[in-house]
């Protein structure tokens, strides 16, 4: 079973995002990046599936010049192979990314391609269905509970209200993973560092048209609408005030 996982980095939301002087982009100079959360679930699922069914897990990341740590972390978690795709100044839009991943996948064996169901920055849509359509493969998003059964997989797709559909999907296929059966395994930093020093990452060159067909007119920090009245002070003072508000409103007895 050839399992391929598409991974990327996204801005770390633990740090404040700022808009640059142009008003159409984030101020990227000091931005720090982390692995996209849903891609981590996709990798964990791939590792679990390989451990059950055998085969190989290959991780692909677009080469932005700073993905060595991301891919080394994939290897440290147990991926068998890591491949850098193309050459990009920075992470491109989803349509460009999908064309690049699709071009790379045409040269790499793949029975099942897994990626995160979404990323916090995919303005022009989710990479999974875009890659699948480029390659003419079936795709399912918002997937959990992947099971392999011969030349097909069964998966769950989640809907509102806790409803779930079970599908059988012919392989090869592309899945957008919502969550993994277990929390993503931990990779010790020392091991990641060691792999970054020693492991040779493979490289696949691709030539693809760039562009999503969208033009960004403006970026803004959302208006808070009914801006919350903020309660200041110690945890005790916060508790006092919340208790008082609930009593005033008759939500708890005075």
């Amino acid at each position: 079973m050839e399992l391929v996982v598409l991974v990327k980095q996204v801005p770390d939301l633990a740090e404040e995002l700022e808009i640059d002087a142009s008003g159409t982009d984030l101020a990227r100079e000091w931005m720090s990046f982390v692995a996209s959360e849903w891609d981590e679930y996709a990798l964990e699922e791939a590792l679990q599936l390989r451990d059950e069914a055998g085969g190989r897990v290959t991780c692909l990341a677009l080469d932005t010049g700073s993905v060595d740590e991301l891919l080394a972390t994939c290897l440290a978690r147990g991926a068998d192979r890591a491949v850098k795709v193309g050459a990009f100044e920075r992470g491109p839009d989803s349509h460009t990314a999908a064309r690049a991943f699709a071009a790379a996948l045409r040269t790499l064996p793949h029975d099942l391609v897994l990626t995160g169901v979404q990323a916090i920055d995919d303005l022009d849509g989710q990479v999974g269905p875009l890659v699948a359509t480029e390659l003419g493969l079936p795709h399912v998003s918002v997937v959990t509970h992947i099971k392999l059964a011969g030349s097909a997989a069964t998966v769950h797709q989640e809907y509102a209200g806790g409803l779930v559909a079970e599908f059988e999907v012919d392989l090869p296929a592309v899945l957008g993973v919502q969550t993994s059966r277990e929390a993503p395994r931990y990779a010790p930093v020392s091991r990641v560092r060691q792999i970054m020093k020693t492991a040779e990452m493979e490289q696949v060159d691709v030539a693809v048209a760039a562009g999503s067909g969208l033009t960004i007119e403006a970026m803004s920090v959302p208006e808070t609408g009914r801006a919350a009245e903020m309660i200041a002070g110690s945890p005790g003072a916060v508790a006092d005030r919340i208790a008082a508000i609930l009593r005033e409103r008759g939500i708890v007895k005075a």
Partner: protein
Amino acid sequence: MSNDIFVLVEHRDGAVAESAYELLGRARELAAATSGAAVALVAGAAASLLASQLGAASRVIAVEDASLAEFTPAAWQAALAPLIAERQPLLLLVPNSGSGMDVAAGLSAATGLPLAAYAVDVAIAGGSPTVTCQLYAGKINVRVRFDGGRGIATVVAGAFPAAAGQAAGSPAVERVAPAAADARIRFRRLIRPEAGGVDITKESILVSIGRGIGEADNVELAERLAAALGGAVSSSRPVADAGWLPRTRQVGKSGLRVKPKLYLALGISGAPEHLEGMRDAELIVAVNTDAHAPIFGVAHYGAVADILEVMPALTQRLGG
């Protein structure tokens, strides 16, 4: 090519989904600005029967075939991509739901129409659509235009009022057969959620915890607070994913929509997928260590504080 605004209608068990009304209401306003029509696009085995629920549409295109009895991403894409490519609406609005996000991105790649995802607003300016998208878990809004003037947008639940899309009447139906079939994905069954002991949609007070709760042992702090308040504990998705609370307690896009008298959001960042499940609560009080957490954008009261300290203090104040 047309100036029409298409809405992809979701439905289940013979009933049109709330999202369709939210999108149709907006589509009508947009169509008035483009001198086009608001067109409901429905796929299914008996899609045309849903027309009587789609009075807000100027007309209905029903893509009908036995093979469309149950949704699959492959069958929908095969049936809809040629139709969209041929009709070239000015805009196709798709709900950003579990199935909608799948279909919209597939249609974008298949038709070459650009896609704007996570839309919270759509307008017409100079005859073509502009779309405001919510990115970075709700921390940044991005306004975009489609380069060719036409495109697809996936719209976040609750972005537009459903009432504007609910009108009586049964618009004219155009029945079409799917242009192509794709059976590489087969529907097996629908799994309905097991009824939990607590129905959070019926509780008037919810103490809702997110990843900020830190570990399973801390859930007890929320249980005690809920007991003191006479309410129940609900959660964001990661808490249910971790198994710290049953899935039936999850609020949001893939969980339940709640509208309690009080929603205490504790250690919840306020991602769009969470907000769509609770933003209509009568009173929202949020406690979070991050002053920039989007949850404060929908809260009535907020405090930048550690929930592990605030929960026991509040429980004590309430005599718990």
